[in-house]
């Protein structure tokens, strides 16, 4: 593992809109550390969707429970870890083909769909009773 050149953590309440506020903070940080980063919008969308997942599914939109976002930048990648307080690993179902997904009565669940396509790697894990999603963008 390469030595980190930047590490920062943000904590937000489990409330809709928190993800947008944290997007701005991440954007400011990355623009300062890595000006001109071409994939910044993909990163911001991916982390916003991960934060939404954590708020909705991990913390069940309980305002009192925080969502934590950690960003580590090293010479080869950006690593985002989004941590919620859900004690159960999410059940990630196989993706339906797009036409079938469109036929669902409530076609939700696009968050993980987008995260997987925008990032280079995304994987759930758990540690100390907390669930996290790691999202990696290679530089």
């Amino acid at each position, binding site marked *: 593992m390469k030595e980190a050149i930047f590490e920062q953590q943000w904590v937000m309440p489990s409330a809709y809109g928190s993800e*947008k506020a944290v997007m701005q903070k991440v954007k400011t940080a990355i623009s300062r550390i890595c000006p001109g980063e071409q994939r910044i*919008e*993909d990163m911001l969308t991916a982390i916003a969707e991960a934060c*939404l997942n954590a708020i909705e599914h991990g913390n069940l939109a309980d305002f009192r429970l925080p969502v934590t976002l950690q960003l580590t930048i090293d010479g080869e990648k950006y690593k985002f870890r989004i941590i919620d307080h859900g004690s159960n690993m999410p059940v990630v179902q196989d993706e339906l083909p797009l036409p079938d997904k*469109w036929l669902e009565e409530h*076609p*939700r*669940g*696009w968050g993980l769909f987008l995260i997987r396509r925008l990032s280079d790697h995304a994987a759930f894990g758990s540690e100390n009773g907390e669930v996290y999603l790691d999202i990696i963008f290679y530089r």
Partner: protein
Amino acid sequence: MNEFRADKRIAGGTVIYDLKGDLSNQAEEVMLELCEWEKGLGQGRRFLILNFTEVPYINSIGLAVLIRIIRPLLRAGCQTFAYGVTPHYQKLFRMVGLTEHMMIYPNEEAIVQRIEHLEAQGE
């Protein structure tokens, strides 16, 4: 708080909504209750234009809302167009299949020309 609004205009057989604010959870109820989408656009209108010029943020909830609007409109024989969509959000629209059913143009004038052409062809 970024309140979401959808201002309606009508031009002939076309309904235009100028969307203002984030297309996220706060927009869900507003968008779905704009009209009875299952019944089409009403009064024989067949074209919907969505103006995204003042939509700074779209998330997966917003994408799902668009699908829930476009899907019944397709069944009702209506066509949807959009303009003012940034390249990043155009990419997201492509990823989720929205661009199969919602044509994106650079501006409203270009869409109006396209609709006039379709109407002239009787489509």
